[in-house]
């Protein structure tokens, strides 16, 4: 099956000075919600702009549904709905006028355009603001309108750049729910540095650092690869009992344990060991040491740990590359 996005050695260098995207090869499976994760300046936005043909690659190539991207690749852009970070919208227009303009740019006939605009305004909760000029909109309203704008042409691929930036909690919740909903029928690429967003919505992700794609795969792959078999057990009981438990667990084959923050026991199970048997043995010893278990986590902030570990590894291996 044709990937929604394919890049091969995609490279963008600005004015022989700044490497924004560095030899990036990537495939985004169709019908997935793909998170493009990376710190500020990692090259996420540049990657999206290369896909849209707003910028030209210095080397390599990019394809969307098998078609090459470029400044005049109208066919490619007709398949993409783009939401920029804090979208700059024409303040002198009203929402219906703006969406109508975009519908015309997508060559949608009147009988398709008008009902879709009204459905979209209802979906993003802007029906009550149709008589206001866009310049009076709050950040959240602009983002909602930007979302509607990206959906006007009903494209099969959505590229959303930091869709939750600057949103209040309810608007953020709305946006994440919408992405989840869109992911059922479309390919959605969400560029962000907010890990919790990625954790909640994405099935696949790519991690960018200093222009390079340092990881690409499924969420499970990332967590499995980097967190291995970690558990965090929050315990109630005397500190010396928790310390004794940690020593006993560490004596078991293939299990390491250490006390964290006085009350938590971090348990790491080596590869090849049965997680369920190891965990059962640890739980039995909790009771034996007169401790009680209040909470158990499978890893702690797994995505965050994995992400930070990836960045550290990438920096440590910089010279080896």
């Amino acid at each position, binding site marked *: 099956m044709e990937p929604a996005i394919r890049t091969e050695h995609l490279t963008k260098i*600005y004015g022989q000075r700044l490497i924004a995207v560095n030899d990036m090869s990537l495939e985004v499976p169709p019908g997935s919600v793909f998170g493009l994760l990376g710190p500020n300046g990692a090259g996420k936005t540049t990657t999206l*702009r290369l896909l*849209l043909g*707003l*910028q*030209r690659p210095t080397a390599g190539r990019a394809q969307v549904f098998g078609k090459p991207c470029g*400044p*005049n690749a*109208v*066919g490619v*852009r*007709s398949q*993409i709905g*783009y939401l*920029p970070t804090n*979208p*700059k*919208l*024409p303040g*002198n227009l009203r929402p219906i006028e703006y969406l109508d*303009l*975009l519908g*015309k*740019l*997508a*060559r949608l*006939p009147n009988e398709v355009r008008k009902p879709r605009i009204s459905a979209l305004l209802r979906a993003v909760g802007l029906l009550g603001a149709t008589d206001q000029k866009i310049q009076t909109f709050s950040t959240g309203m602009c983002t909602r309108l930007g979302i509607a704008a990206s959906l006007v*042409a009903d494209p099969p691929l959505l590229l959303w750049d930091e869709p939750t930036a600057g949103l209040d909690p309810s608007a953020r919740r709305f946006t994440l729910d919408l992405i989840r909903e869109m992911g059922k029928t479309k390919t959605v690429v969400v560029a962000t540095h907010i890990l919790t967003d990625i954790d909640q919505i994405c099935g696949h992700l790519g991690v960018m650092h200093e222009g390079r794609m340092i990881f690409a795969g499924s969420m499970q792959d990332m967590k499995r690869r980097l967190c291995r078999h970690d558990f965090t057990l929050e315990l109630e009981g005397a500190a010396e009992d928790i310390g004794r438990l940690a020593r006993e667990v560490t004596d078991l084959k293939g299990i390491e344990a250490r006390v964290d923050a006085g009350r938590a026991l971090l348990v790491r199970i080596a590869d090849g060991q049965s997680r369920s048997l190891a965990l059962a043995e640890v739980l039995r010893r909790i009771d034996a040491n007169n401790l009680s278990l209040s909470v158990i986590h499978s890893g702690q902030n797994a995505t965050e740990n994995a992400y930070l570990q990836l960045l550290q590894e990438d920096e440590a291996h910089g010279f080896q590359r």
Partner: protein
Amino acid sequence: MVSSAETSPAAATTSAETAKLGTWMMPFMAILLHDLRSLWQSRLVRLWLGAALLLTFMLVGANWSQFRDGTLIASLLFPYLVFPWFFVVVVLGVGPVSESRTEALADGILSRPVSRCEYLLATWSARVVLVLGLYLVVTIPAIVLVIAARRPVPEDTVTVYGIVTALGVVGLVLTFLVSLGFLVGTLLRKPLLAVVVLVFVWYPIGLILSVFSLEQFSPISLSRAISTQLRQPWRQAEANGQTSANAEDINALSDQMSHFFSVLSGAPPKPKAANPDFFEGETFADFSLVRVVLGYGLPTLAAVFLATLSFYWRDL
């Protein structure tokens, strides 16, 4: 019945083709209308319209009983060719793809299924339509008034052909100015710098053109030649040099006779129409409508082509 069966598929085909063309042109028209609306809402355009109306009114009022028709119409067209409206036209041309608008442009329009060429042509067309529309809306009523009114000046031989071609020549120069602003704005990206460069190029354009022996294309030369074109085509004027001289003699004789009879009858003498040198060209060996159209038309096309090429290679 047979006829209806024969025509109906043809009509359907035509209708389908029209619909197809309409769909194909939809983004172009959408950008054009959006840009026209934005331009119309800008303060610069509103101020320009007001100032152009005022200046036209003042020129007509001040020279009502001074200039003959051709000379007065030429003086109305002068501000568009030389000063001050060329400046406004250049500023309007510079705007659309300058750096300050790039981000909004990329986010709003060029990330949609629109080619850069389509965008540039639509936004260039919007500026040309606005500039020409405003120029014609201001000048045509004034010209009609000048021609139709009974003014206390001698009759002139201004022709409809002359008016249409003179308006067309000035319109062509304005189109060229918009295109030049468009090109320099695309190349330099910074609008202020682009305007400064254009001012420094346009004002000494006569000198620059004279280096290439093309001084007849300068705005000043055109301004001087327009009053003649209003009366008769340039080539014809050159060929009829003798006729022109005779006409001047006849006018002078007519003035003397009029003065003589006024003195006899005691009525006030008919005012003498001024013929200021500036608006009255004399030699037109190098002038022809075709040459002027080519002289401004080809650079206009070249400017639009180069702007499109430059914009195509630019990162947004």
